[in-house]
């Protein structure tokens, strides 16, 4: 057992922890990352790589995504390794006139705040997507949406942070957080000894709740499972993201018109082509605890949904499938916050289905918050206080 010290200790070597480490190291902080497994071994390697504004409400939600998109485009120059970044835009497709009407309202709301959204008619869809089902009514596009390989981005931030002086301790568990008599952070206890520090960032994703409990804080972060199918290499079906509009219908107070299993497993099409000549097909949304077993019924349901939009997929083999746990919060926004009751304790967790999109902005504002600078965007709406009354409720 050894004792070392650091300006900041980050708990969790996922994309959020590594982004925080990178931006802090860039500001000259002495950073240690403590990760119980491998870098990106948690949810950050069991996901898609979408950096999306297309599905965000205009306002704070979309501003945060757009800022992060900008930062990621800069990371292409700043980081030491490539991470399959592209910004081809993304599209949502509609199955009915009712969805087309809602899509039009969505596009108009986005255009009002100056975002590069537009409707796509049947003809435009047809000419870009020769394999899309004939009965798709049309869709909409957000021209700036981008994509990355999330594992490569996490590793690229990790190696760059290391070059800037950060220390990464993998296969090391955080077992406790030591507070001084005034209740402020004074160290982090790990499976390989104590690290003295005045600042701790809880970036433990779906595992952030037990970390917060170590200092007596309750945060309502729960695992929300998602499955993804990996196709074999094949002739290109398309080069950018396609999602179905129907899963946004709830934002318009309308019900989705899908079969019972699709509803039960929360299945909605996400088509993500990759640089490896294949594509990923998602996804599902379920609250089933920390169970990481593949459920073949869910896989079948996702495949059925994908074939509904791309009939050609019935003849393309699936190589494998995987699942991950999204760090869900009740209002679907992350917690990016200092904790006033425990001076020196910070939370950067609960990014649910947007942790890849929001990693850059989260790391940046965390680094600014810890070093006492003004944050790039206001993080008041992300304060953990907003859950104080309803902690635990779903």
């Amino acid at each position, binding site marked *: 057992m050894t004792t070392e010290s650091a300006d900041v200790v980050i708990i969790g070597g996922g994309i959020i922890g590594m982004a925080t480490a990178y931006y802090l190291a860039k500001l000259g902080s002495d950073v240690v990352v403590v990760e119980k497994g491998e870098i990106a071994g948690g949810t950050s390697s069991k996901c898609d790589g979408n950096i999306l504004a297309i599905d965000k409400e205009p306002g704070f939600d979309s501003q945060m995504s757009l800022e992060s998109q900008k930062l990621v485009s800069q990371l292409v120059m700043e980081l030491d390794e490539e991470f399959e970044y*592209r910004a081809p835009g993304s599209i949502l497709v509609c199955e009915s006139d009712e969805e087309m009407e809602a899509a039009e309202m969505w596009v108009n709301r986005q255009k009002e705040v100056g975002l590069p959204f537009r409707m796509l008619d049947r003809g435009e869809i047809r000419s870009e997507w020769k394999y899309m089902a004939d009965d798709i009514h049309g869709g909409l596009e957000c021209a700036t949406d981008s994509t990355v390989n999330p594992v490569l981005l996490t590793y690229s931030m990790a190696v760059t942070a290391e070059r800037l002086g950060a220390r990464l301790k993998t296969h090391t568990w955080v077992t406790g957080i030591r507070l001084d008599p005034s209740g402020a952070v004074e160290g982090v206890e790990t499976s390989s000894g104590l690290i003295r520090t005045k600042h701790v960032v809880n970036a433990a994703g779906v595992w952030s709740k037990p970390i917060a409990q170590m200092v007596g804080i309750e945060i309502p972060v729960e695992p929300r499972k998602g499955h993804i199918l990996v196709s*074999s*290499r094949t002739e290109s079906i398309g080069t950018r993201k396609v999602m179905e509009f129907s899963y946004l219908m709830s934002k318009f107070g309308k019900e989705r018109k899908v079969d019972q299993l699709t509803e039960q497993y929360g299945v909605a099409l996400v088509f993500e082509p990759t*640089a*490896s000549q294949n594509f990923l097909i998602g996804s599902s949304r379920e609250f089933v605890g920390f169970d990481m077993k593949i459920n073949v019924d869910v896989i079948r349901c996702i495949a059925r949904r994908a074939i509904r939009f791309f009939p050609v997929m019935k003849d393309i083999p699936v190589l494998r499938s995987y699942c991950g746990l999204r760090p869900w919060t009740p209002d679907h926004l992350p917690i990016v916050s200092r904790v006033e009751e425990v001076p020196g304790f910070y939370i950067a967790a609960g990014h649910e289905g947007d942790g890849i999109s929001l990693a850059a902005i989260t790391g940046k504002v965390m680094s600014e918050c810890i070093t006492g600078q003004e944050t790039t965007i206001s993080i008041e709406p992300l304060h953990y206080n907003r859950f104080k009354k309803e902690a635990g409720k779903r």
Partner: protein
Amino acid sequence: MRKSLRINHHPLLGEMDKKVISFTYNGEKLQGLEGEPIAVALLANHIRILRRHEESGSARGLYCGIGHCMECRVELLGKGQVRACLTPLKEGMEIREGSRLPNAITGRVDS
């Protein structure tokens, strides 16, 4: 004539008396036994290359033989990609080796 690779009399499995049928591979007319895996029929015809890697173009063949590794994917007319090790041979099948493909995302077009 090359030496046959088939075992016709097996001490435990007995006689191989399956029906001989015709199929094509890359346009070439070949014969195999009905119901045997495509990979086996091709091997009996001394064909070991089942696919060119879609990115690098390097040759690929039978690897695990039990449907797990996905290395033996061939193009079966009317069916798309199938695993040669798992797909039973039928009369008249038109099969092609899996080919190198352009990469629409990285922009690589050479073949």
